């Protein structure tokens, strides 16, 4: 749950009981005021004309036989049956059912046995008062109003039993004013309390979001001594740990890459020398010489090793594609001419007819030149190595409606249908791709697949009509297409 919602709920949970408490308190004030008003009116009337019954019959007088004023209170009957003093039982007073008045002398002692006794402490506390109200019990909301009338010795005070009003009409404007005031105060307090917190939380969230990958830290200004400060400190500590681990990993990765690059570099030069010398030896060798097949085989192996060295370098690059993928504008036709020049010698060695068909246009794509060159090289090399001597390999490039289609076709044995889907799905780490040609499928195809995925190009393999070889097709988006000739480059 969001902090804002939590704070709102907390505020509501605090506000509702507060409203109830204030309402109850306000109601109490209203009731008290109501009683006071009734008692004063009663007092005025009784003092103006003291009841004759109080003077004449104080021992039995229970008040006038008419309804009391106001309607909201009434004189009840003499105390109920339960309040009557039973023979031998304790003196109990019940709640009067109807109107009831009692005469008291100056010491607040009544000659009427039904009259409730008045506590001494209350008499002293209220001495000199014209009228006062006394609750009949701690948990009782009814009460007695005592009015000084001084009509006779036994009728110095008249005690009037008042029932608690069931409903007092409250002043709605007053209630609303009170509620509005309380609501205003609560809201203001809530806002004053929560806004700085919310502001800091928002700032902390923003700073965390903006924290760089290399330096995941929030500003020191956010590190106060409260819980949010603790959170900021924890984030910074976590950031430091992440940064340390990142640096360690980056160093390790760099060392590994450097190692692979150095190894590739160190291997590349002697391999080139070997290829050149083997080539020369083969040229100087007589066609009928027994050594010739061995020299050819050695040259083919050196070509395979050369491809392995390049693939090793490229696969390292692909492993770290986020860091090292560098796309640039690239002319696919020019790239294909380079690939052709690289493999013409191998094709000639294997007596394979290798041809390239271009449209003569400049075909621009946004791509990493090293990765794409290796991708296409792998497809061409696979094709040349898989076809039989005197076989054919052709590479065709065409561009239409903003898309290019590159096809590498051969008349080799193709790929068994069962293996074809497996080849399409395999990744660079699959065990199958580690096998060596001709037993394995080769690392080259999986690298080609990954390079195509990286450039959002499609790569499809399909067997051509039975016994007619394999077709590998790459399709992708061209960035722009120019007219004929290189002059447009």
């Amino acid at each position, binding site marked *: 749950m969001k902090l804002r919602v939590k704070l709102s709920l907390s505020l509501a949970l605090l506000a509702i009981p507060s409203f109830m408490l204030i309402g109850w308190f306000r109601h109490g004030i209203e009731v008290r005021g109501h009683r006071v008003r009734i008692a004063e009116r009663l007092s005025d009337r009784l003092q103006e004309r003291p009841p004759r019954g109080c003077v004449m019959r104080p021992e039995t007088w229970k008040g006038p036989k008419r309804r009391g004023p106001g309607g909201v209170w009434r004189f009840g009957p003499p105390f109920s049956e339960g309040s009557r003093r039973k023979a031998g039982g304790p003196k109990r007073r019940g709640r009067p059912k109807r109107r009831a008045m009692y005469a008291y002398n100056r010491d607040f002692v009544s000659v009427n046995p039904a009259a409730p006794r008045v506590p001494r402490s209350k008499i002293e506390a209220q001495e000199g008062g014209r009228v006062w109200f006394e609750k009949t019990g701690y948990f009782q909301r009814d009460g007695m109003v005592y009015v000084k009338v001084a009509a006779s010795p036994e009728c110095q005070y008249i005690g009037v039993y008042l029932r608690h009003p069931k409903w007092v009409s409250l002043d709605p404007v007053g209630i609303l004013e009170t509620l509005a005031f309380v609501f205003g105060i609560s809201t203001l307090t809530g806002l004053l309390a929560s806004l700085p917190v919310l502001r800091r939380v928002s700032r902390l969230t923003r700073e965390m979001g903006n924290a760089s990958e290399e330096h995941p830290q929030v500003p020191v200004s956010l590190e106060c001594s409260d819980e949010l400060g603790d959170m900021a400190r924890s984030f910074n500590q976590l950031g430091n740990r992440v940064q340390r681990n990142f640096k360690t990993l980056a160093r390790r990765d760099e060392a590994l890459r450097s190692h692979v*690059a150095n190894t*590739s*570099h*160190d291997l*590349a*030069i*002697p*391999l*080139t*020398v070997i*290829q*050149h*010398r083997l*080539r*020369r030896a083969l040229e100087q060798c007589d066609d009928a010489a027994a050594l010739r097949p061995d020299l050819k085989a050695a040259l083919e192996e*050196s*070509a395979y090793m*050369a491809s392995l*060295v*390049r693939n090793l*370098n*490229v696969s390292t*690059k692909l492993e770290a594609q986020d860091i*090292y993928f*560098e796309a*640039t504008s690239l002319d696919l036709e020019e790239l294909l*001419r*380079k690939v052709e*020049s*690289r493999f*013409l*010698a*191998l094709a*000639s060695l294997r007596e394979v*007819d290798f*041809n*390239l*068909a*271009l*449209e*003569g246009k400049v075909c621009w794509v946004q791509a*990493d*030149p*090293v*990765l794409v060159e*290796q991708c296409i090289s792998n497809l061409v090399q696979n094709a040349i190595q898989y076809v039989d001597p005197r076989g*054919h*390999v*052709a590479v*065709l490039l*065409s561009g239409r409606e903003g898309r290019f289609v590159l096809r590498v*076709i*051969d*008349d080799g044995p193709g790929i068994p249908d069962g293996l074809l889907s497996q080849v399409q799905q395999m990744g660079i780490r699959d065990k199958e791709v580690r096998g060596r040609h001709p037993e394995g499928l080769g690392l080259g195809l999986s690298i080609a697949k990954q390079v195509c995925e990286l450039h959002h190009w499609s790569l499809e393999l399909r067997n051509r009509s039975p016994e007619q070889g394999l077709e590998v097709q790459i399709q992708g988006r061209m960035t722009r297409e120019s007219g004929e000739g*290189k*002059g447009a480059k």
Partner: protein
Amino acid sequence: MTSSERQRILLVEDDPQLGQEIHRGLGVAGFDARWVQDGSEAWGLKLEDFDLVVLDLMLPGVHGFDLLAHWREQSDIPVLLLTARNETADKLRAFSLGGDDYLTKPFWPEELVARIHARLRRPVLARNDSLTVGALVLDLRGRSCTVDGEKVELTRVEFDFLSELCRRPGEAMSREILVEKVLGADREGNERTLDVHASRIRKKLKGAASQMETVWGIGYRIRDRR
């Protein structure tokens, strides 16, 4: 071919074994090559004396990129960079400094020679009205064809077909492209129709028919030799 007629190549390569092999290979390919092993030595050379430079990047004395930048201040001679580092960043930097081509080791001798030939080939700026490929001569303006000086009667489609091939001698052209360019959308026909036209052209070319080759999986190509 005398030494003065041969194209001159400056080879800057520090590895003695590889340098020796490349130097020898360039000589066999018909180039007049000079081999320098040190970057500092190459720094002072005048590039006007050469037609192309084959430059290794990791050199003692001066790095290949520094040499390239230095040379580009004074000359536009084609520079083919040779390196064992197959890095995109290096490749992009090489081109940004003015390098013309980039060859990564290991490579075959033929690959290097093919790249050098590609760089030394001068672009034809003037538009020719006639195309000559071996024994074949096409007059584009007059739309006529001769083989060894003897006129060959070609239909409009056959002439277009042959002229498309002769515009890019030695390069294979796909049937799809040829159908589009020769037969066009308004002319009825498909790849089989194209094969029929090719067969008729071969018959008409007689002695020069062998110049027109069928390329497996692609289409046709015209060679400048019989």
